[in-house]
């Protein structure tokens, strides 16, 4: 059995009458990238906050890098890097000053500080911008700095809460490359996201969350196979026609999902089912919608 960077068992977090996290189990093996996938309100951010003891669980066991939370959280945080969902850089400071502050907060010894900051600047491709104030940076640069800030002390575990939310596709791809590079260096990553493509590309294992608990977990390809089969048939048409297609598929014992403009009939792996439409490989989005429901509550 491989060593675990994060181990959650039966974790519950309630806010008054709302149960944000409901008996969640989560394993993040060392050296892997795990994606926490779920719609808004599924409990991803609360889970992330519990891992740094900024939110205290009502029930359950939490272990981060072998330390028990919340008692030993500070020790765990020494070796963690956190990329928050909302940008909380010091905007009146320069790029380098932001990194300097975090080099201190993460206790990098004096002799190694300069080198650590240089490394972070390079990684974020901000060497030329070191003296630029944060409020003069583009959105993509700010995000890169936010990630570099979390990595300045070479953490063994990186927690990323929606690292690419609200960014252009170009910027997002740039960040994916950065995260992928980190992963290939062997850094353990737990990343929450509601972008399916992001999870599919970066995560070794995906945990799909809905209403505070895990509804499925496994490598993306395996999840797709298990829950959505190999192929899907995408049928387009007016709403009435889509309703018919849906009814026919259900009658044939197949599962469907709406995509807004079409109905996808899932698990048509043989040639047994025919209807007019486009065949395509089943994907993680199919699984996501199947497991977390079609309607946003």
């Amino acid at each position, binding site marked *: 059995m491989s060593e675990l960077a994060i181990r959650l068992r039966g974790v519950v977090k309630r806010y008054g009458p709302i149960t944000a996290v409901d008996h969640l189990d989560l394993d993040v093996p060392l050296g892997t990238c795990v994606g926490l996938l779920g719609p808004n309100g599924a409990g991803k951010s609360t889970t992330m906050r519990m891992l740094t003891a*900024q939110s205290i669980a009502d029930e359950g066991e939490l272990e981060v*890098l072998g330390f028990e939370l919340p008692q*030993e959280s500070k*020790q765990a945080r020494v070796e963690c890097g956190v990329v928050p969902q909302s940008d*909380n850089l010091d905007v*009146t400071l320069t790029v380098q000053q932001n990194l300097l*502050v975090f080099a201190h*907060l993460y206790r990098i010894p004096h002799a190694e500080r300069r080198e650590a900051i240089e490394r972070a600047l390079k990684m974020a491709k901000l060497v030329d911008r070191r003296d630029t104030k944060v409020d003069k940076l583009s959105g993509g640069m700010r995000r890169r700095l936010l990630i570099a800030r979390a990595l300045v002390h070479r953490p063994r575990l990186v927690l990323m809460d929606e690292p690419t939310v609200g960014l252009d596709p170009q910027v997002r791809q740039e960040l994916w490359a950065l995260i992928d590079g980190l992963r290939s260096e062997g850094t353990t990553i737990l990343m929450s996201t509601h972008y399916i493509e992001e999870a599919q590309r970066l995560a070794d294992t995906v945990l799909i969350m809905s209403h505070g608990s895990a509804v499925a977990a496994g490598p993306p390809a395996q999840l797709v196979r298990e829950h959505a089969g190999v192929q899907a048939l995408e049928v387009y048409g007016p709403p009435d026609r889509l309703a018919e297609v849906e009814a026919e598929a259900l009658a044939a014992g197949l599962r469907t999902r709406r995509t807004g403009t079409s109905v996808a009939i899932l698990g048509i792996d043989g040639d047994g089912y025919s209807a007019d439409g486009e065949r395509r490989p089943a994907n993680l989005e199919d699984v996501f919608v199947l497991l977390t429901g079609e309607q946003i509550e």
Partner: protein
Amino acid sequence: MSVSAEPRQLGRLERSALTGVLVREVVNFSSYWRSTTFSSTVEPTIYLLAFGFGFGSLVSRVGHYRYVEFVGTGTVATAVLFSSAFPAMFGTFVKYKFQRTYDAILAAPVDTEELVTAEALWIATRAGVYGCVPMLVAIAFGLDPSWGMLTVPLIAWLAGFGWACFGIMVAGFASSFENFNYIVSAVLTPLFLVAGTFFPLTGLPRWAQDLAQINPLHQCVELVRHAVFGYDGWTDLLRVGVLVIFGLVLWRVAIRAMERKLID
């Protein structure tokens, strides 16, 4: 399965955590020190000019002090209050609510207790320095320098620590900026006016004079005056005691208030 190394638990109020938070404040200060220094120099100068010439023409002496001496030493406490309670209140709230700075700091190996303590220490240090400015201005207006003045930064620091904790506590309990109005109007303004800064308390009713004894701002005013013109033995030690208790109690309350706010 465990991948950790000793020690299992880090202590409270660690030096490295306090340093981390202080470095952030100092680096930030390097980007706004000009405006802070400007306002904390210009403000007391205006006070001294206005009250010195305004009241000074009506009142030449208060007790055995010349009026410029009275106001010049009194406004040290005002400067301490303005450079501690207000920045603590607004700064803490902005960092919590708008900049989300505390989310980032608490994700690092820093606890709320360390965060609050470091910020209060920093604000106290600023108050210790800026608190002396009115006295320096007063020297330019004719206040005679004395050796006792060298203890004024310490008094300003001590009072500043308490007021910084007060401000952090208020920010911790406040749910919006508007809440500060209640505190400023109902707490700070009365305390500010019955501190013996601009007029002596001896003219007030007995009960008000008694109440003023538990006003930390009044104790700060008295201590500064005595530092400049000569200490009053045990009485002043008692005043220091009041400021120490004020600081310690509000320090703990501020930590509790911020823990409630930051950790859910």
